[in-house]
């Protein structure tokens, strides 16, 4: 069995889900299930004009790679891609993409879900809100619910 390595990218540019999916599944005939997760910027009922995503260069990629490797091993994934954007992101725009491929469906669901839960709590990214009136808003506070979601994988 060949060693599967996660595909990890941190970038300001948008990503193309279909292109990433094609790259991940090409040349694999034993993939029975692919789950993709796309996280987008909500407009919070019009209150938000943008999110500013800050990250720790180097560590962000390294941490995502560690999370990806854990998911591949734990769920026997055939492929895993995780891409996180940084910089200014408008409502409706993409923030994060995770793709997990596996022979069967539950492993693909669990793999993508696991990566998102750990990405939220361990990957060094921070969100700052820009209000619709142009004012710089607050840094988004970390949620206990995200820690709880992560801890379900213990």
């Amino acid at each position: 069995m060949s060693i599967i390595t996660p595909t990890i990218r941190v970038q300001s540019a948008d990503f193309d889900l279909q292109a990433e999916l094609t790259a991940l599944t090409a040349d694999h005939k034993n993939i029975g299930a692919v789950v993709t997760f796309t996280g987008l910027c909500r407009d919070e009922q019009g209150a938000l004009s943008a999110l500013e995503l800050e990250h720790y260069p180097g560590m962000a990629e390294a941490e995502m790679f560690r999370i990806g490797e854990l998911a591949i091993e734990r769920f026997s994934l055939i492929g895993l891609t995780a891409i996180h954007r940084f910089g200014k992101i408008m409502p409706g725009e993409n923030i994060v993409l995770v793709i997990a491929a596996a022979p069967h469906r539950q492993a693909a669901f669990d793999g993508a879900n696991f990566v998102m839960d750990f990405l939220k709590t361990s990957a060094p990214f921070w969100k700052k809100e820009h209000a619709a009136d142009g004012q710089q808003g607050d840094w988004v506070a970390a949620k206990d619910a995200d820690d709880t979601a992560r801890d379900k994988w213990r």
Partner: protein
Amino acid sequence: MSVKLVYFAWVRERIGRPGEDLDLPASVVTVRDLLAHLTTLGEEYESALQFPDVIRVAINQEHAEHDEPIAGAREIGIFPPMTGG
């Protein structure tokens, strides 16, 4: 011991710079010692680190607990809880 410190998000904003190289006294052994030491450097540090329990630290770009020793660290990141994804 000399170390490169990097700050992110509101820790960076309150301290007022993205990072700095700092000489640390020998009494600074653990992450917790480092955070306590920094709060003595001025009120901008105090404002950033007044609640050390919420502060996250990475040594050489890996998450570190507050009781871990910082010996051997080339780069120490200091930041609030992560909110990506």
